[in-house]
């Protein structure tokens, strides 16, 4: 399953890059970084469906509440 997912992202990325008319290296770099991040995200979620959601603002809020008391 994981291999299929990763392969899917590779194929999408490859095809899309191939279709670009021009490929400035900055854009290609950012594109590849984001795509690999997305792929990692998908893989992580496939491995563990209960992956916790980080809540930086939630932590801040809890901290403020504690401060209040």
């Amino acid at each position, binding site marked *: 399953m994981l291999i299929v997912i990763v392969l899917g*992202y590779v194929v*999408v*990325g490859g095809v*899309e890059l191939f279709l*670009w008319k021009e490929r400035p290296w*900055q*854009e290609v770099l*950012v*594109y590849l970084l*984001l*795509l690999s*991040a*997305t792929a990692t*995200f*998908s893989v*992580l*979620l*496939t491995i563990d*469906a*209960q*992956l916790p*959601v980080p*809540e930086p*603002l*939630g932590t*801040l*809020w809890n901290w403020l509440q504690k401060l209040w008391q």
Partner: protein
Amino acid sequence: MINESVPERQGAALVFLFIIGNSFVFGLARWAGRDLWLSFLVAIVLALPLILVYGRLDTLMHGQSFSEGLHRLFGKWPSRLVALIYSFYAWRLGCLVTGNITNFVQAVSLPDTPQVVMASAYAILVLWAVKEGIEVLARFSSVMVIFVLLILLTALALATTEVDLQEFFPILYDGFWPVFQGAFQLLDFPFLETVLLVGLANALTTKKNSAYKVLIPGFLLAAFFLMLVASASVAILGEEMYKITFFPVFLAIARIDIALFLTRLEVVVGVTFAIGGFLKISVCLLVASKNLAHALGFPDYRFLVTPLVLSIIPGSQWFAKSVMEMNLGATKIAAFTDVMVQIVLPMIFWGVAEIRMSRVRKNKAGKPSGI
């Protein structure tokens, strides 16, 4: 940057569909129970000033592309930080809406289809729409708004035989507090999610001040329409049922039975939900891509669309892991994150923007032209 512009009417349709989008199927303002129409009125009154602020922000950026406008208002690095925050907020909202749709479809009609399949199908459509840009989305909404209104209003008209106005009495039996709770929930979702549309500023404002003409009618129409739908659902289902069910409108429409012939119309609710949800996800992803492009310092956003849209497939399964969680998320009273992004940050931006703009104006006035 490609110059994009959208006629006011289409813009208003986009705002309307964006607010209605995924929200009407939920038990909006269920905290207020039978007094929810009061919640709606309170929420509309509370939301209007903020919508005006959003409109003012749009107007201040008038005539410039979004990134130029942001840059001019806040300077280089602050504007990039702001863009990043909103990009993330938009992406998160897009994921949540996708999750709503996949959960709804699974709960209602396709229990055996994995949610990922639905999410992927949606992602492909959204990918296309976002790459086409705001103009296509606005045209899409100006056509679909008729379709959605037609379907829902017809369904509600047919349901009038089931309406019992006694359900609204007694008024304010439990006091004002539940009404406020309901109103805050409405502000949080879906009214103030309009904040995202600030990101589409230059496309939505063809003339100066036209931001108001897009946001205000779109918002008011959507708010009153939601009020109608929710009140009708309460009048049909009764307060208790409205409170405990996940999708009250769906249940209310299911009650329609015209002479044993016209029944099972709830399918059409699903259709409108699919249309509205699609538009909302597309707008969210459009805003997310545009903001991210600005944050990273690129003039065009289109190359960012694919990875962002693909990430809503896992994202939709991430934020809400079950239909209960989703419902809780949609009908919570207020979340810290949302309050920050929807109210606090826009107010700060507004203040900063006004001060900077007045300085710019003063400088211009002070300097004689031509020197």
